[in-house]
């Protein structure tokens, strides 16, 4: 559906996107994930046409759209701020693109009402000012405005980043349902790993203009291909080289490698049927969160690890308790140590 071929984007001396090669499939919910300034929004804007790549090609259904004017790309966009026109009501916002394209009055009316129904906007809401709508309704107007022109792709640039945590979760669910309903190829930009993991069919993780990994949420989480990806997604323990040296871990971690293990993979209970490394330690700190607790473990022989354990009557530890610690060998992620790294 969409292919980025050797795309480079430079702003003067700044190399924003470096040699991007990526294929996004039809109907897929694809997320560009990464920290601020990693090149994800720049890539998105180059797809929409706001930015011209310095070199390389962008193909849409095998046609080169690299230099095609924005209005001819048929890509609907939902902006971070939603960019709803404040002087127009909901109806006028949705109708804007149709009027630009000179649809007849009757057609505009029909299309606006159709799309409004599909995104669950009531008729009486159509004539409200956009400022009178809730965050969720505003998001639906922005999506309706983008979809009313029947684009082949919908792109969303951090649409939930300005909202509070509760509303973000609610709108995330709505968004997923709408995407399923329309079945449209969707590209979503976010720096929030939780959003990316819950919404996406596949995720592309960007770092300093480089696409470091593409994969399903499970792949990206469990089989992070680079040290950056494993650090950026989820909570993770970096295993201290001293701990490796003074424990059975030295038989597992390759010399010259740096090792990580996700917090929830560190277990305080024996694990059946999988190969584990057993360590001895002490509870150094405990934070109680109700359903679960976060523990800081002081490892005998040096170093610390963090873990999360579900609370129950049978399972409970206090600070100072001696514990056995089990690390599944298959969950120990290893990456070659960079030059100068400890």
């Amino acid at each position, binding site marked *: 559906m969409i292919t980025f071929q050797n795309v480079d984007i430079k702003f003067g001396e700044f190399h924003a996107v470096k040699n991007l090669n990526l294929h996004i499939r039809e109907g897929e919910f694809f997320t560009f994930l990464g920290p601020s300034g990693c090149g994800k929004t720049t890539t998105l804007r180059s797809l*929409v046409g*706001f930015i011209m790549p310095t*070199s390389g090609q962008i193909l849409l259904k095998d046609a080169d759209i690299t*230099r095609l004017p*924005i*209005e001819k790309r048929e*890509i*609907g*966009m939902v*902006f*971070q*701020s939603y*960019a709803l*026109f*404040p*002087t*127009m009501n909901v109806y006028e916002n949705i109708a*804007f*693109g149709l009027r*630009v*394209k000179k649809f007849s009055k009757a057609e505009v009316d029909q299309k606006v009402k159709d799309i409004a129904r599909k995104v669950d906007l009531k008729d009486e809401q159509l004539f409200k000012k956009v400022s009178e709508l809730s965050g969720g309704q505003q998001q639906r107007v922005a999506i309706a*405005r*983008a979809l009313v*022109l029947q684009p082949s792709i919908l792109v969303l640039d951090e649409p939930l980043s300005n909202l509070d945590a509760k509303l973000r979760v609610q709108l995330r669910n709505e968004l997923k349902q709408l995407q399923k309903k329309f079945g449209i190829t969707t590209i979503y930009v976010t720096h929030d790993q939780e959003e990316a993991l819950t919404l996406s069919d596949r995720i592309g993780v960007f770092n300093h203009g480089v696409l470091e990994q593409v994969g399903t949420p499970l792949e990206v989480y469990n089989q992070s291909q680079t040290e950056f990806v494993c650090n950026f997604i989820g909570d993770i323990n970096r295993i201290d080289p001293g701990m490796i040296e003074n424990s059975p871990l030295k038989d597992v971690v390759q010399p010259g490698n740096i090792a990580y293990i996700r917090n929830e993979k560190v277990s305080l209970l024996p694990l059946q049927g999988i190969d584990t490394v057993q360590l001895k330690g002490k509870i150094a700190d405990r934070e109680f969160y109700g359903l679960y607790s976060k523990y800081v473990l002081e490892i005998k022989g040096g170093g610390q690890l963090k873990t999360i354990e579900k609370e129950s009557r049978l399972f409970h530890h206090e600070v100072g308790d001696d514990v056995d610690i089990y690390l599944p060998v298959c969950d120990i992620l290893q990456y070659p140590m960079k030059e100068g790294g400890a």
Partner: protein
Amino acid sequence: MKTRNLSTRLASINPVSILLYGLIVWFVIAFLIYPNLNIYGEIFFKDGQFTLEAAEKLLSSERAMRSLYNSFILAFSLIITVNVVGITLVLISEYFEIKGAKILRLGYFTTLIYSGVVLVSGYKFVYGEEGFMTKLLVYLFPSFDATWFHGYWAVLFVMTFACTSNHFLFLSNAIRKIDFQTVEAARNMGASTWYILRRVVLPVLKPTIYALTILTFLTGLAATSAPLILGGKEFQTITPMILTFSRSMTSRDLAALLALILGVATLVLLTIMIRFERKGNFMSVSKVKSELVKQKIRSKFGNIAAHILAYGLFVLYIVPVVLIIIFSFTDAASISTATLNLNSFTLNNYIQVFSSMSAFKPYLVSILYAAAASVIVVALALAASRILHRYKNKWALALEYAMLIPWILPSTLIAVGLIVTFNTPKLIIGNTVLVGTVWMLLIAYVIIHIPFTLRMVKASFFSLDSNLEDAARNLGAKPFYTFRKVLLPIILPSTLAVLALNFNGILADYDVTVFLYHPVYQPLGVVIKNSTDAQALADTKALTLVYSVILMIMSSVTLYFVYGRNSRS
């Protein structure tokens, strides 16, 4: 790839945009840059030779040197009197608990609804030799000199009250932003009301007070109508002198040099002001700011004294306005003798203004000038802001700086620059002469209002969410359609507010008008000033009072719509 880029770029160029941008560039070069450079040639070059003749003439002219001296004396005096009165007014209305503060504030606000020549002529009408207040004072104190209201003291008196508008607008705002918790903290440590005022409140206001001081100094230096109407022969300042010199071909170089001195002083002071602003900006470090609560003056004597002062100032502010309104409803005899009786009340003055073309003409002229100039300047600022918003390169920056030139030059210098430049045919304006035409004044009004308008309109543009424009483009809209349908409706309210303020300011302008007006089409400012002359007829004075009242109403309405309504929402 590069050829393809170029052809794409060329194809995207809109000829209308090119024409528009060309027009703006021409206007900037022809009217903002060229006259202000040409003035140096006029002063320092004669027949292609460098000369200091104008400087020698200035040094040997006792009148000119005296006017320079007077201007600086006036400016220095004003910074003391205006700060004393201005700060007092703001403390009375915003900081201390004074009974009836809301009404007092309305009284102090009156200088916002009438200013410049209208205010000066109003004060002369009230305090002049035949004025109501002077007659009252003579009646109460028979030895009182009825001719007291002229010269340095009269100019200082009027300008002191006229210049407090800026204090009211800016200092009030600054005092409201003070974090009340700092006041409470000082009180908690045992500080008295006056100690808190002196050591906690006023130091925070210092940057604003410095800025206002410099603005006041500049106003005093470039004062026009007050010294012209009230100064008399013994107290003439630079601007009236420039006006006199600019009217004769032989002394135009002297006028230009005086205007240049004014310009240099303005530039130096503005530079100082910017440095003060940079240095002394106190940022509140409060996590949660508290709104200022008015302070009760705990000393009984202090409280009574403050109330007497507050109401005394209120009377001083309100009396000219009230008397102008009352006398505008009286006949010519009452106006000329400053006496009131029931039989003298009439609506004839108003009927005459609205029924006689000759009486209405100054209004019509001023309205046409104000409407045309304010629309043109807003259109120009909109186009320029659009360029500045879209293109962030050195050319856009140069355009912005060029358009801000009038901000750093006194209007007198701009007027003289236009006179000395366009009194002969100039190629840049199609080999025509502008001096003596009706267009000259229109162009001057536009030039002078560009910086304020550009700053306000540009601020509106830059506060827009840039995603709006991208969203419109994404939905297929062309740039002009986006501007018309999306951006303009958003910035329209603030743009209209700027337009209204400009219209208001131009309507009764005198300082620029007096240099450039067409004798057949005399605007209101000139007519109002003429009515203050001793030989003016009582009927003319009556009409002037009506003009003044209508101007006050228009100003009030404009200010309400621009500030009042906004602040409510």
